[in-house]
């Protein structure tokens, strides 16, 4: 066993004996989930390059570390998004920084751990029912070790106009630790919501987040996931979405931070007429590894899925994209498309991409595309011949490539923030202030 596996195994075992850090008084279904998670992790251990889903992302750097339980920490100074917001620090609920003012009626937001103590019946039908990826090591680890996370509930038919913010702050302190935030979002029939998950931090640590989202019939959710963890951090995120009939899910994933950051989006189009639209942007520099895995399970007829993921890679960074569209038998009239484009800006940047289609049905319209290239000489020449400096021209073309992903971020203040963060990470990005 590697050092990391050993440290997680220790914590999982201790947890089973009900030691201090574990929230007490958990209902039996949670205990059962935790036990199953523990068993799965102890059996699967950390995935290696031999695992098809991990063939391009090595966990060797992570596996060589010892991770303790998350340290208690004060709320760091950070510019927090407007209310209503839930704030978590090192995986623990931070009531002081949380502000639920302006929360419309029919919408509930709060600590998951608290809800598990006070009204477990509301959680039981959903928790662990959406995140069903089999033998998922990090999902299982999260289930075994989570302390808290957000519970967001929208009653049937509620059109929630305000943006709901979930903020996960992590501050490194002394020994390396792992936080395992666990979120559950339940959206009732015909309800509408805009939800933002932000991950921020500084220093070295591991965040292993799981978000389960269940969309009722006709529900509409826009979800923005912005990852700006510390440059030394490990970020692992699993987003599992289960969609009801005619529901619509729009997801954006912006990945900027972390020495190793992997986001998995797994969407189950489980009822007729559901549609999902996923976008992603990863901007890597230094020795970062930014990885996205997207799995769309077309299990019902007449569902639509769209995926567009873009990568900008500089320095010696690595971009990884694995997309899989699985059209099951009987999922007639499926319409799926998938695109992954990558821009390599330096000698040492690399990209590995595998956009996959698995189709067990004939009445479908599916396509996928993947491209890898650099800034085009003719475009550069066009700008240079019009007196634009080379540095600005490169920055402009890079921004032009990435900007449509940023434009998709719904809430205005978040879009501004993301735009600033993305341009800030581009070489000569400061030149773009006027343009972008």
């Amino acid at each position, binding site marked *: 066993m590697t050092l990391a596996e050993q440290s997680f195994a220790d914590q999982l075992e201790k947890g089973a004996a009900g030691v201090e850090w574990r929230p007490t008084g958990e209902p039996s279904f949670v205990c059962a989930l935790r036990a199953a998670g523990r068993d799965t992790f102890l059996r699967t251990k950390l995935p290696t390059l031999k695992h098809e889903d991990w063939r391009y992302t090595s966990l060797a750097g992570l596996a060589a570390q010892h991770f303790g339980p998350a340290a208690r920490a004060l709320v760091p100074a950070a510019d927090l998004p407007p209310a209503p917001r839930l704030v978590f620090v090192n995986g623990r609920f931070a009531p002081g920084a949380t502000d639920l003012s302006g929360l419309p009626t029919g919408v509930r937001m709060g600590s998951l751990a608290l809800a598990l103590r006070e009204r477990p019946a509301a959680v039981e039908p959903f928790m662990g029912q959406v995140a069903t990826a089999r033998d998922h090591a990090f999902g299982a680890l999260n289930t075994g070790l989570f302390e808290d996370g957000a519970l967001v509930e929208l009653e049937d038919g509620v059109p929630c106009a305000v943006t709901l913010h979930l903020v996960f702050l992590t501050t490194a302190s002394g020994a390396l630790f792992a936080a395992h935030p666990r979120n559950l979002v339940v959206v009732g029939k015909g309800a509408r919501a805009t939800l933002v998950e932000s991950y921020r931090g500084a220093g070295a640590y591991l965040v292993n987040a799981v978000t389960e989202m269940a969309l009722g019939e006709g529900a509409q959710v826009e979800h923005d996931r912005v990852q700006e963890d510390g440059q030394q951090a490990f970020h692992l995120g699993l987003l599992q979405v289960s969609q009801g009939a005619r529901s619509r899910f729009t997801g954006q994933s912006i990945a900027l931070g972390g020495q190793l950051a992997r986001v998995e989006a797994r969407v189950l189009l489980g009822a007729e007429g559901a549609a999902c639209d996923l976008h992603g942007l990863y901007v890597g520099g230094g020795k970062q590894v930014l990885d996205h895995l997207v799995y769309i399970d077309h299990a019902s007829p007449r569902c639509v899925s769209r995926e567009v993921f873009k990568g900008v890679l500089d320095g010696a960074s690595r971009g990884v994209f694995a997309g899989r569209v699985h059209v099951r038998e009987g999922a007639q009239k499926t319409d799926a498309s998938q695109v992954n484009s990558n821009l390599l800006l330096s000698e040492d940047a690399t990209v590995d991409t595998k956009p996959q289609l*698995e189709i067990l049905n004939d009445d*479908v319209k599916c396509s996928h595309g993947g491209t890898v290239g650099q800034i085009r000489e003719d475009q550069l020449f066009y700008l240079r011949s019009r007196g634009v400096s080379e540095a600005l021209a490169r920055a402009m073309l890079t921004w032009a490539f990435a900007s449509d992903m940023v434009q998709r971020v719904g809430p205005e203040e978040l879009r501004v923030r993301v735009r600033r963060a993305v341009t800030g990470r581009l070489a000569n990005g400061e030149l773009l202030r006027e343009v972008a």
Partner: protein
Amino acid sequence: MTQEATLRELTEGKYKYGFVTEVETDQVPKGLSEDVIRTISQKKGEPEWMLDWRLKAYRHWLGLGMAEPTWPNVRYPRIDYQDIVYYSAPKPKAKLGSMDEVDPEMKMAFAKLGIPLAEQQRLAGVAVDAVFDSVSVATTFKEKLAEKGVVFCSFSEAVKNHPDLVKKYLGSVVPYTDNFFATLNSAVFSDGSFAYIPKGVRCPMELSTYFRINAQDTGQFERTLIVADEGAYVSYLEGCTAPVRDTNQLHAAVVELVALPGAQIKYSTVQNWYPGDADGKGGIYNFVTKRGKALERSKISWTQVETGSAITWKYPSCILQGDDSVGEFYSVALTNNRQQADTGTKMIHVGKRTRSTIISKGISAGRGQNTYRGLVKVLKGAVGARNYSQCDSLLIGDRCGAHTFPYIEVKNPTAQVEHEATTSKIGEDQLFYCRQRGIAEEDAVSMIVNGFARQVLKELPMEFAVEAQKLLGMSLEGSVG
């Protein structure tokens, strides 16, 4: 006729090449051991170094612990490697000097397949090295080729007559440690073809071999090696049909191509082995390793039309080692009934300004499962590498499957790599358009699918294009014109 009925009629056509030729065969007992390998080597009168190479491969294979790769998207019962006859040769009638001496039954077999040797000799200008169960029985046009200095013979002859060339290039592209099936082949390969085209020579005719699997329970382990010396050009055709069988037959071939600087090799395949019946009973298991190594300014082009076999596992690949080398892969793969195909290519860009093109067309009907699996890898030194891949799938019926698994790995920023794929069923609007203009249903289906596969079929040499269309038609008339 309704569209459904047409499709059913066309997709459920019987395999038209099913027959068994009864020729006395000279077999070694079932199973695999060092003794069997020694026997094969001895029967073929091979020199010591060849036997040593086989034994090395066999020992390596044992080390693999019978563990076949499990990653392909195909399902089949476990193969018992001790239940296979590893060598069978038609009982020889001494050396054959002319066509008249060829076993009449064998001639009949070729005639049924539409490859009458005698006619081929007169027409076409195609030299046929007919492999009938592992041993070459007739080789034509040899003198004409000899004039140009082209060596085209069976692999066994090459081992005897051109040992230096064989020693130099055998295993240089597909080493005996390459993969499970290539290792097995290296240990027990029976025969195959060898071609060497000397410097600057443009081979005066298309080289061709017809492989047939005949004796029951005989795995065929062909080994083909083609070397095009500097500036040479050769077009090689390979076509296959096999008779109806109830027991599954294993085929694990290895093809190695070496294109020296400035050379061009065009390798075309039409594969139509017995696919098994409608319930998936019988059929050939086809596990093939094909790879070419391209040096400076050389070009390797693979074209394949895969309509047969119960299982196809095949990835003709190019190692674009030299600067400015070019790799191409054109494929039509058709699966019907319960056929499964997991096929594609690998393009490894090593040299500067290397270019590759991949065009893959998969057609699935009945309960067929068709998988494209391809790798485009651009190594760090491959400055200015360029790849374009297109993989399209056509689905006919709601119980078949089409899968696309491309892998793209880029380690050089100047590389430009594009991949695109589509999957769709036969367009009802297209059918309607044709029907509206008075084109019969089956002609319309034929036209549409013909159009779908056209990009690949046009890459085949003339002589082959006709046959390819015929063979495709046998498997799915009207689907691929």
